[in-house]
């Protein structure tokens, strides 16, 4: 690819991402309702953890402040990362609109990824910051010591979005083969609610469950970014954590591409 073509492609995806950002910026009332929800659930969970720590100073390497920070950060970034009930591609498959999308001169997977990244930046800022601020007013939360941590955190969240997108992309594409993609989606949602460390930190999991969960891609979605925020990994460990996320993102996006290729063949041969 020439430098010029690379530049054109980059600006195209930049525009797509910008559109994703603006698309969600119009739903201000929904954003407000979401912020209230995340904040309230943050409080309820925080109180449960306070009770848990009444008999302990340390659980799985976390103290109470770590855990409360973990709670409000994860409530804040949950929308940026997961986007519950995102079925745009599956609906396109059902309606047949996907066929025209395939014929566009833009990479189908990267198009949606760019849009999702744009969206996630909006959600990270507007759904992420308010619950954390309210939480910090009520509890003792831990702020990063090093200014660079903020940057590493933002990067880590976006890598988490890439992993999450890759998984959601596959679940959506399953609509090509399965009549009931929603049932599959709910089961997947259960898996990543628990194994991402959203319901409770993975560090609290007992023994082998913790070891296995820390290696799964679900950890790369949420647990890693929050741990980066808590500065649990620094220096080389931080690089390793980001590499862990990037590795899963690449692998899962590639698997998604294989699925996409199979889906495209299916469309070409059977006409959808």
């Amino acid at each position, binding site marked *: 690819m020439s430098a010029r073509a690379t530049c054109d492609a980059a600006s195209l995806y930049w525009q797509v991402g910008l559109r994703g950002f603006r698309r969600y910026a119009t739903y201000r*009332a*929904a954003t*407000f*309702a979401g912020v*209230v*929800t995340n904040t*309230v*659930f943050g*409080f*309820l*969970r925080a*109180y*449960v953890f*306070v*009770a*848990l720590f*009444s*008999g*302990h100073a340390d*659980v799985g390497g976390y103290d109470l402040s770590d855990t409360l920070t973990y709670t409000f950060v994860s409530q804040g970034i949950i929308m940026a990362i997961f986007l519950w009930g995102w079925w745009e591609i599956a609906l396109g498959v059902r309606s047949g609109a996907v066929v025209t999308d395939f014929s566009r001169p833009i990479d189908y997977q990267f198009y949606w990824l760019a849009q999702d990244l744009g969206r996630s930046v909006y959600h990270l800022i507007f759904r992420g910051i308010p619950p954390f601020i309210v939480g910090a007013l009520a509890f003792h939360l831990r702020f990063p010591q090093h200014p660079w941590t903020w940057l590493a955190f933002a990067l880590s969240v976006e890598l988490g979005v890439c992993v999450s997108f890759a998984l959601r992309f596959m679940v959506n594409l399953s609509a090509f083969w399965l*009549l*009931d993609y*929603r*049932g*599959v*989606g*709910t*089961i997947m*949602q*259960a*898996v990543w*609610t*628990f194994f991402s460390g959203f*319901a*409770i930190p993975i560090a*609290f*999991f*007992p023994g082998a469950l913790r070891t296995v969960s820390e290696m799964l891609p679900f950890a790369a979605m949420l647990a890693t970014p929050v741990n980066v925020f808590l500065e649990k990994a620094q220096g080389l460990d931080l690089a390793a954590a980001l590499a862990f996320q990037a590795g899963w993102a690449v692998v899962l996006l590639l698997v998604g591409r294989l699925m996409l290729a199979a889906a495209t063949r299916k469309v070409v041969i059977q006409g959808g």
Partner: protein
Amino acid sequence: MADLLSIYVHIMAARMRAQLQYRVSFVLQLVGSFSLSFTDFAVVLVIFAHLPYLAGWSLGEVAFLYGTSYMAFQLSDIAVGQLDQLPVLIQSGDFDMVLIRPLGALFQVVTLDFTLRRFGAFGQGALVFALALARTDIHWTAGRVLVLTLMPVWSIPIFASVWVVGATSAFWAVRSMEVINLVTHGGQLLTQYPLQVFGAWIQRLVIFVVPLAFVNYFPSLYVLGKPDPLGAPEFVRFASPVVAIVLVVVAGRIWNFGVRHYRSTGS
């Protein structure tokens, strides 16, 4: 009343027939509902992997609260969860249709659909409850058996009334409902744990304002024979039926008030 029940049965039967047509889809949704709701209990299990008592409650006792809360909430959801569709009905003007039929508006809204898949989450709650009964050493007396068996009689109406009040706000501001319904969905999480876990302001809120503490917390103190660390008087443990009746009446009044302010903005 018997008439209403027979209409309900007929509407629901028609709906169920439509849903059961796609059997695989139904089973998958049931499994999805079960597993997603199970993540809530997984959290309880992880917590108890680190300590024997949470705020003085054993795993079996917390499971008792969790199970009763889950079953009551899911049954209320099955009964009145369709109220979440009210903003859509109001915005589209389809609420008009509800008002030209010879049935109560509330009855019609809650029977708009019947989500069988929620029995997945209900089953999860029932399973945890069975575990609780096996793990706790309850000294069964006639009174305790009675309170336990009667629990659905008040717990479902309390959740449902809160739901109705939250939904009524949609007659004025469609988005307000999402925020108010937080109380119901948040209430499900809240009633899974002993009340003393939560901050004082939350305790006051769910005792005096949105009386979710009467769903299962106070009656469970009686059934499990536990002292109340909040120091509420003894009769509070038996006040749930009265609370439920008052709430149902208040919710009904508020709902009727809302319906009279319906503006029918659709065409």
